């Protein structure tokens, strides 16, 4: 399943393409305000960028770029980030997940909500990326326990 693919064409194409797929994923996450996409789709693209080297490249190389421990770590960090953003408005008198209640000096509430959306998208992207990587590593028997 995993490990170096015998055909050099496949190896080179995947090695060249996977960083761009991951980069497109980051673009989709960051660009959710203006176009289709957001955390879910972007996180999946980044995960594909991490899984493609595992399928085609030498194992030592692929697992050094994205180690198996990265999956649960990213999923947990993303989930925690989301919960943190959700809880912060409670301390300034707002409702759960009401980013607009947070006041930042020199910034109108709409701008704060804009930033809140951005943080949520990043958190969702991290969580989805981690979850997909963890599932793949589990199925291929490479997850650490």
């Amino acid at each position: 399943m995993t490990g170096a693919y015998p055909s050099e064409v496949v190896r080179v194409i995947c090695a060249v393409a996977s960083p761009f797929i991951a980069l497109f994923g980051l673009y989709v996450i960051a660009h959710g305000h203006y176009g289709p996409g957001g955390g879910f789709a972007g996180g999946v693209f980044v995960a594909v960028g991490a899984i493609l080297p595992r399928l085609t490249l030498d194992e030592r190389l692929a697992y050094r770029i994205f180690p198996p421990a990265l999956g649960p770590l990213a999923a947990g960090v993303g989930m925690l980030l989301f919960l943190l953003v959700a809880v912060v408005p409670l301390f300034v008198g707002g409702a759960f997940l009401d980013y607009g209640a947070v006041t930042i000096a020199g910034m109108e509430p709409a701008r704060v909500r804009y930033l809140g959306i951005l943080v949520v998208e990043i958190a969702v992207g991290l969580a989805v990326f981690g979850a997909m990587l963890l599932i793949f590593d589990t199925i291929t028997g490479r997850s650490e326990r």
Partner: protein
Amino acid sequence: MIVPLDILLFITLIATAILALHVKDLLAATALLSAYSLFAALLFAGLSALDVALVEAALGAGLTGVLFIAAILATTRHSEPRTDPRRRLVVIPLIVAFVGLMLYASTDLPDRGDPDAPAHTGVATEYIERSLAETQTPNVVTAILADYRSQDTLGETLVIVTAALSASLVLARRRDEGEGTEATPADGGLGPDASDDAPGGRDRGGEERR
């Protein structure tokens, strides 16, 4: 949307779904399921639901296929045919009844794009009118998903993370027991056939690769 294209896509969609159920080779079934997701994504795009189409194309047509193939390589490639003929007597009437119920219910649905539909008279109008001013986000879908309805998104993210953690807890092998025996994810539960097939399935996968 273009009506002839929609009809063609729907026919292809149903054909891939039926074929995926009928083929015995699970690898072919996975490829057909990916094709199904791709056609579904095209249909979503035709309805201008680009956010859904992007997720369907990335997740349904892309990553799910990879995960299924990984699962096939870890287990077996051939599906066992169901031998009990009495299953049909139960299953087919159930399916017919369910489809009939859905078709009956669909006659009550409002037309596509009907401005008086209940979905368009409630809070949706407020979102569309005010989201740009309130959140500075031109994409209404993102504003709804990550701001107005962010609790739903929180729940969805929680579901995905929980699913990954559960899969890891159930399937992951400890390092000490994974050395000698190749790919027996769980003792028992799968039955003797599955544990016999598991190493063979992995070997076959290796041969195809070469």
